């Protein structure tokens, strides 16, 4: 059945309710809501969340935006919380202590801080052990909750409060870690990179696959932050689109090791179009800093080409 947002919204009420305190123009709530909408109505979820914007803005005692079961403990361990709950589910189901017809899914959310950095070990461990769960990283490219500090997901040259663009050092001097590839290296049944564009089709469909794939699955979803990136709050969906059209954030999935790029722009846009509307890259547009844009473009091109190559190689080898 073809994807139809209107129909989905009519038949699947949001499991992430309004009234949360995330900022206007933030990409993360869109991710949370879309991922949870991919659950079948009759299924139940145990959501685990790392400390971060998404947690502190959605579950302030005594209020919660989560209609499913939810647990938060700390910053670096959303994956291990899910893993423990999933192990409990297996044990209790085996012993007949929960109804046999109950179908509970385990979904963890973490920002790039809680996923790329402090939570990487917990994530890697849970994925390697093969828990039947989905880990969703909403990547906003810095530690936004504590006030925009650089993370290993922060793109090169970005101005953050711990990699400020100064007179001598022009922002973050290191390239962005490629976490999606690291997760592919775990040989998971399902890994995907997504974003909320085009009526959320890509994100919804990948979430559905991730949730209903037996075993561990990982979704890396770019989730822009108006405070940290410095774009007008009404520009969220446009920024998302530019991230994809410039190939800064390619959309792809890796199913049992086989790469599939789910969207290839016909005319790849120059990276300036993505960088320009963002305050964090403002200094790159000052006269004399053209080299920074050039370098950024080269890096984007290199990574895109690598992805194209991987798609070709992995599909070729399995055809033989």
């Amino acid at each position: 059945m073809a994807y139809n947002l209107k129909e989905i919204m009519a038949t699947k009420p949001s499991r992430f309710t309004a009234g949360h305190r995330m900022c206007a123009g933030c990409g993360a709530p869109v991710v949370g809501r879309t991922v949870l909408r991919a659950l079948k109505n009759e299924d139940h979820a145990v959501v685990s969340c790392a400390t971060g914007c998404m947690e502190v803005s959605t579950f302030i005692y005594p209020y919660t935006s989560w209609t499913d079961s939810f647990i938060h403990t700390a910053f670096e361990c959303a994956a291990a919380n899910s893993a423990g709950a999933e192990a409990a589910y297996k044990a209790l189901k085996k012993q007949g202590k929960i109804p046999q017809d109950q179908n509970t899914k385990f979904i963890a959310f973490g920002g790039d801080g809680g996923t790329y950095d402090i939570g990487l070990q917990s994530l890697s461990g849970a994925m390697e052990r093969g828990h039947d769960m989905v880990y969703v990283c909403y990547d906003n490219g810095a530690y936004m909750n504590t006030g925009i500090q650089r993370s290993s997901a922060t793109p090169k040259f970005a101005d953050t409060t711990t990699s400020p663009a100064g007179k001598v050092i022009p922002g973050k001097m290191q390239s962005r870690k490629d976490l999606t590839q690291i997760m592919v290296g775990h040989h998971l049944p399902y890994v995907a990179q997504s974003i909320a564009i085009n009526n959320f089709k890509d994100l919804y469909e990948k979430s559905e696959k991730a949730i209903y794939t037996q075993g561990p699955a990982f979704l890396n979803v770019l989730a822009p932050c108006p405070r940290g990136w410095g774009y007008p709050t009404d520009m969220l969906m446009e920024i998302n689109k530019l991230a994809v059209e410039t190939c800064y954030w390619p959309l792809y999935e890796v199913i049992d090791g086989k790469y599939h790029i789910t969207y290839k722009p016909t005319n790849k846009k120059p990276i300036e179009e993505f960088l320009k509307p963002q305050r964090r890259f403002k200094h790159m547009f000052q006269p004399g800093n053209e080299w920074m844009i050039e370098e950024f473009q080269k890096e984007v091109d290199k990574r895109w080409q690598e992805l194209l190559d991987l798609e070709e190689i992995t599909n070729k080898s399995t055809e033989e």
Partner: protein
Amino acid sequence: MGIRERLSGNEAAAIAMKQINPDVVAAFPITPSTEIPQYFSTFVSNGQVDTEFVAVESEHSAMTACIGAEAAGARAMTATSANGLSLMWEQIYIASSLRLPIVMSLVNRAVSGPLNIHNDHSDAMGVRDSGWIMLFSENNQEAYDNLLMAHKIAENKDVQLPLMVCQDGFITSHSIENIELLEDDKVKSFVGTYKPEHYLLNKEEPIAIGPLDLQAYLFEHKYQQAEGMRNAKKVIAEVSKEFEELTGRKYSFFEEYKLDDAEIAIVCMNSTAGTTKYVVDQLRKNGIKAGLLKIRMFRPFPTEEIAKALSHLKAVAVLDKADSLNGAGGALFEDVTSSMFVNKVQVPVVNYIYGIGGRDTTSKDIESVYNDLAKIADNGGTDDFYRYLGVRK
């Protein structure tokens, strides 16, 4: 009438876990507790338990997975030592604040640094105010018995707090001694099934756990946690009574060994109590009225009862197997002396830091403490109350 066996302390802990048959065990190896998850994973591999064993990648994840499992509605257990507990530290506090009755075997070992794998109590002392019930065990039998009682205490509605059973690394964890085990069915009916009121896997009642808890509520939640700890005292007494009826083995908040008519006494925890009992017997032969107070229930701390039990003495020595590096004395010393003070018990008390990093504590060392106490009793007190036993200065 029980099963007579010979087991190490770690084996005893693992067998207790097998008989308890928890739903989830998540653990990471660390000396000297490694054997517990090792033995336990054999029970899992051989289908002797219903447990899901989660071989996590760190102790932080061990405690986190236990939290996830217990919150989901399962009985979760783990085991660790020293730096393993240090790595769990963040989650240790979270486990108790979420009121999750997780049960842990803590095989006591010196916390780094420098690195040392042998016994002292610095690991346990680091979490003494984290909201975990802490029971100490002199030998394999007590480690086993305390574990069998653990869930009934921790899961009690008036308590709902995690619990750790401590025993001394290597000294009891790796020494094989006689032990009397209960039959599996008796353990099963004694421990009972876990029926949490609210849990994540209850599809009919979704709940949210672990909020951002700000100025308007955190204080009350912490007060409730403290109430749970205060309530634990009564529950521990009740469960110990029930256990005594089942096994004939009597457990109190602390053991008083020849303390009634004693004039001088040592207060200590875990295996050192065994050595001390031997010394007390020897001294008694020479007419010296020595006694021992061995703490079993360290958290909650039985302040009134301890003050009362020590009130008739002429001098008391508190033995701390961890230095607090605070310029004031060990943790047990501070708890005992403040208990005495607030209960208006005025007896000269001295503190000995001993056995650090597995330094052997012999009967001669213990005897020297009693000799010191005899002098203090005669002199009516001392200013030199912060002492060391067996250190080269």
